């Protein structure tokens, strides 16, 4: 490559990969403990090592994996376990849609890799990067995205393994039953950005508690559906109110 100035540097895939890796590095502090916890809780719940690793390597979606464990601990039917776990992952469809304008023209094997590695941190970093630097080529964008997962994914696998191996040696006094609720609350709290998000969360709690009598966690699916509609409706209502206020 010739000396074409700074623009050339920023669209070089190798540079983009390294920048992605550097930007994602702090996230290993979040992903590491979370992976460790999944290994521990999964083993405590009765999964063997291969099964715990199967979840982390094949599914590679923390919140969804924890949700599956929780519903499995209630011995729910297989279909309910799968539906609940996938419902938690539906937000990824939104990520997929918002990455499409930037990566939609990449070859299908690259898009498949982007899909497999789609985690909150990689999506968030990449989305911001692609918007701020529209001059990036498609291959530089792909390299940046893979760069962001380069430190995260191996860490996720390795610490799941460590947790699964150490898991059975942790005594009951550590109250690990509550590790999962605390982790979920910590993930949700920063997401309560608008009145619509708060309304959806409150609806989800109230309906889930009211519907707790329903068998095998089906009450949760009802609660989640109602809460999504409430969130969407509050958003519409707030939009209308804002427009009315700004009207002359």
């Amino acid at each position: 490559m010739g000396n074409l100035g700074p623009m050339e540097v920023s669209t070089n895939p190798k540079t983009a990969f390294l920048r992605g890796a550097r930007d994602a590095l702090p996230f290993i502090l979040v992903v590491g403990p979370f992976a460790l916890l999944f290994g521990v809780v999964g083993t405590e719940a009765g999964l063997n090592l291969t099964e715990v690793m199967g979840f982390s390597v094949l599914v590679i979606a923390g919140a969804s994996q924890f949700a599956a464990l929780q519903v499995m601990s209630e011995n729910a039917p297989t279909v309910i376990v799968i539906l609940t776990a996938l419902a938690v992952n539906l937000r990824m469809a939104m990520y997929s849609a918002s990455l499409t304008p930037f990566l939609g023209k990449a070859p299908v094997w690259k898009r498949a890799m982007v899909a497999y590695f789609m985690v909150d941190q990689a999506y968030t970093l990449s989305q911001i990067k692609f918007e701020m630097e529209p001059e990036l080529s498609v291959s530089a964008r792909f390299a940046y995205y893979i760069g962001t997962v380069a430190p995260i994914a191996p860490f996720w696998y390795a610490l799941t393994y460590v947790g699964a191996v150490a898991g059975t040696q942790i005594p009951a006094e550590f109250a690990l039953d509550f590790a999962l609720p605390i982790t979920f609350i910590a993930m949700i709290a920063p997401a309560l950005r608008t009145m619509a998000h708060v309304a959806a969360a409150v609806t989800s709690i109230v309906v889930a508690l009211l519907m707790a009598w329903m068998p095998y966690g089906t009450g949760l699916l009802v609660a989640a559906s109602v809460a999504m509609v409430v969130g969407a409706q509050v958003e519409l209502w707030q939009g209308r109110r804002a427009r009315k206020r700004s009207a002359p």
Partner: protein
Amino acid sequence: MSYSHTTIWIIILAMALGSFLIRFSFLGFIGDREMPDWVLRHLRYTPVAVLPGLVAPLVFWPDATGGHIDPARLAAALVTLSVGYFGKNVLVAILSGAATLYAMIYLLG
């Protein structure tokens, strides 16, 4: 839990395939076409619609205390929520919640 190893692998593989298809969906099949606003509007709320409902019974009726309200777990949940909401840092919120839980369990015996 009381699942056979075969059932557990069915769950893992169905989740793996389902998660991949959700992630691949628009990127893989839709290409450059736009998604309808009403779909996006509902997808936006999936995490806050699913996770609070999943957690609520665990906070109010924990198995570890035989389904009775437990001040230690309730306090830990409240601290985690407040620290996460105001601090916006997941890791700090988890650590604060865990510290509260252990402190309360120690104090209440």
